[in-house]
């Protein structure tokens, strides 16, 4: 599904130049669940941002469904991203001024889905995430676990092919964290490709494959079990 060839990312300020990614070569298959691990500052989030088409690499190639996207403009990337990638963040990133329902509805609005269909899809996904009873609440009125469930609902409502999760349990206690991981696993079982950055070995245990990064390079890859495409 996606493939990177010698991916590099440099961050430069007036005085220092930092290499965040230094020649990443990887391939992720459709339906795979991949965890990316590594110490702070090893480039996990940078990689995730590039995979999620939020940022461009400084060098190298990135094939998103066989299409080279590394040199695309922000507008083109936005177009490609819309509807095909869902995001889940450690800090949920819900919009405080919108209710649960409105937050989940937002991606469909940008996809110009008709109102009736939108309502139906949002309700479906809220039921699935078991958060329907909170549909008219604002994010601040929810617990962390509930907020993350809303964020996941928002990430999947447009039925993307891939979900990128950046430490999805980082702000949650273990019970809520477990619940969120189970949700992600369910989604993966239903066919959604899952790429997750995490510090937690426990969470990584849900993945089929763990990629370890260090100083911007892939150092090891552990395949948990045989994975068939």
């Amino acid at each position, binding site marked *: 599904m996606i493939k990177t060839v010698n991916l590099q990312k440099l961050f430069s300020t007036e005085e220092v130049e930092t290499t965040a990614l230094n020649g990443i070569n990887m391939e992720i298959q459709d339906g795979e669940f991949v965890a990316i691990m590594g110490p702070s500052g090893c480039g996990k989030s940078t990689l995730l*941002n590039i995979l999620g088409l939020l940022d461009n690499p400084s060098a190298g190639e990135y094939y998103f469904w066989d299409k080279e996207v590394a040199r695309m403009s922000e507008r083109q990337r*936005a177009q490609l991203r819309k509807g095909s990638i869902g*995001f889940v963040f450690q800090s949920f990133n819900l*919009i*405080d001024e919108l209710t649960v329902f409105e937050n989940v509805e937002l991606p469909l609005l940008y996809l110009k889905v008709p109102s009736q269909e939108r309502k139906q899809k949002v309700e479906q996904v809220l039921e699935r995430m078991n958060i329907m009873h909170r549909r008219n609440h604002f994010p601040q009125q929810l617990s962390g676990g509930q907020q993350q469930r809303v964020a996941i609902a928002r990430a999947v409502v447009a039925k993307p092919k891939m979900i990128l999760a950046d430490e999805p349990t980082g702000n949650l206690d273990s019970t809520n964290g477990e619940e969120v991981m189970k949700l992600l696993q369910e989604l993966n079982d239903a066919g959604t490709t899952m790429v997750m950055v995490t510090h937690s070995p426990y969470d990584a245990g849900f993945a089929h494959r763990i990629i370890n990064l260090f100083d911007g390079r892939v150092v090891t890859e552990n395949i948990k079990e045989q994975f068939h495409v």
Partner: protein
Amino acid sequence: MFRNYIKIAWRNLRKSKLLTGVNVLGLAIAFAACILLVLTAWRELSFDQFHTNKGRLQELYITVQRPEGEESRSNFPIPLTPALKQDFPEVKAASRFIAISGSIRYHDKTFQADVKSADADLLKMFSFPLIKGEMHQPLNSLSNVVITANMAKKIFGAEDAINKPVEIYLEGEWKSFIVSAVAKDIPDNSTISFDVVCRFENTPGYVSQKDDWGASSNEVFVQLADHATVAGFERRSGTFVNKYFTAILRDLKRDGVAPGKDGQLMSLHLMPITTIHFNSISSSGGAISKTYPYLLLLIGGFILFIACVNFMNLTIAAAFSRSREIGMRKILGAVKTQLVTQLWGEAVLICLLALVTGLVIAYLLLPGYNALFSNKLSLALLKSPGLLAGVLLGFVLVTLLSGGYPAWAIAKINTLKVLKGSLQAGKSNGLRNVLMVTQFVISSLLICCTLIAWQQLDYLRKMPLGYNRDQVISIPLPYEMDTEQALQRMRNSLSGQTGIAAISGAAINMGRGRDGASQSSIIAMDYKGHSVRSNWLRVDYDYVKALGLTLLAGRDFSQAYGTDSSGLVINEKMAAQLGGVQAALGVQLPVLDSAHPLTVIGVVKDFNFKPLKEDIAPLTMNLVKSWPVQYIFVKVAPGDLQGSMALVKKQWKQLYPGSDIDPSFLDENTDRQYRREQRYSGIFISAAILAIIISCMGLFAISVLVMTRRTREIGVRKVLGASVIGIVALVSKDFVKLVLLSVMIAAPIAWYVMDQWLQDYAYRIHINITVFVAAGGIALLVAVLTVSIQSVRAALMNPIKSIRTE
């Protein structure tokens, strides 16, 4: 999607109540001020625009080269207009126009009325539509009058006015007329106005002056023929002047006067009717200088700009705190145009809220504003298409400037950066600082200008005028009265009473009385082979004493001398034309006719008998009865001024029980001369105060944001031992620097502008540096106080709390 925008906009506005409040209130106040100023300016600029023929209507004026310089005026000899119509095919229609009386009578009821005389063409040229009576030739008979609907109602009530007999007080007697037509009321933005108009032949002195090319009285309005041009008319006017003004031209040549720029000693010119309101050459017009309405628009623009800048700074700052939302929207697929639309839409919503609030404020303030600045404005003016379009355009510009730019600036920022919140309010301060400096430049500029204008007016008010104005009561006499007799009777009844020092009279008031009148007449004569010009003032016995003038030589007019009716008292300027103060005494001047010259019996020290805008000119005071006394002057003893005023009123009531007078002290009258300046300086002061308040509202909001950002820094500094004062100084420093810079930029601009303005005054102050220091001090003080509210709060906060904040 649109509903989503509105929803989030509304929730955002409610969430940040302080910022929204500052934004909406600041903008609303600015809108209100701007609406009032625009209405004021619009009204001034709308003067005389309602005439259908306005493109072809002109007022005639003449430029004469004199030894003392060029003189332009719009008063003409009576025979000029018929000659003009005869000699110029360019002139399609022309009318003389002059005020002839102030009283009209129906049966035994007398009414105050503005009675004018004019030629029949007047009603055809100008758009003063008739609504009743003889529609085609209402002034075909010498005894016809046309009155306005309002006047008709006042005189006749519900009765039909047409063909009713009325009487007008002319040349000391009541003359009979018939109402031939009723005209629609004259719009209050018309320079030419009347309550009653009759044929020009009824003008006092018409018969004796109808062939006299030497005296000038009436104004002349012309309508040019369709093919004619102003330039063509003016080119051909040379021949006309040479043909009719032979005597004056001969005298000018004899006196060795140099021709003007056009090579002529005298030349006729035209000014478009739409400009006479702003042209002081016009006797009817010249109410204000054309720069004033534009100045008002500029100030309105300034205030609105200041509020817009607040809006811009606050929107940018607030939007940065919303970076997560904007980032998330971008991730979810929003494109730049969608974000700009959303953010700009929010700005439009706030502006709309502010505009509506502003309109309500303007509506509530309007009666007070009208009263304060003696205007007759109404919000209904906003319905006129031009103004409405202007307001809408202004509104769109405001939303584009205040909301559009921030929206664009935020929407173009890199998604990841916004999402991470790595952009913070106030990190890139360049634009914000420039905008803040601009705000304070404008505020300081307005403060400086206001201070200087106020100083100048104060200077004019307090300047010694050469006559006593605190203890002299001036009484305007009713038109229809035998004024000479009235003066005599008042003199008899008041003299000898305690508190009354002297009584006299004159044809012209000092300053501007409650009747609003101010006028002057000028005479010219030959003396020892050169022409002498002087202001001509009919006075009465004891004038020098009553006004407290200083005699330099000779004596005052006195009833003790039987010959004083042919005597003259002159001022130093006039004496200088006659060879000096001592030499002038006893000089005989052929003022009226050479067979009966008048003799100079006294010379007084120069005094400011005209507004201080003008230098003191030659003045000749006389007792010639053909200029009747119109004002009584009573000098009272210091001490109980109000008691003396009451006494004067009481005596008048006893003598004339049915007649009302409206006396005033001369200091009120001289103050009234500067009413226009006071009115405008009032507007200026209000604008300056508003500008500084709105600037400070913005400063306050920005300081809230900056303090929030620096909370942690302040906490750390406190932990390390910084004092509260030290912290307040630290955070206020940046703002203080900006305000100081603004004052430094504003000061030279203010100096230049006000120096130009002061050139209008013959007597003026010198601009002192203390004004700028004071203005800077005011701006700085207010700014520091504003910022301190926040900085003290931040400095007093428990450091543990502030460190934890981030």
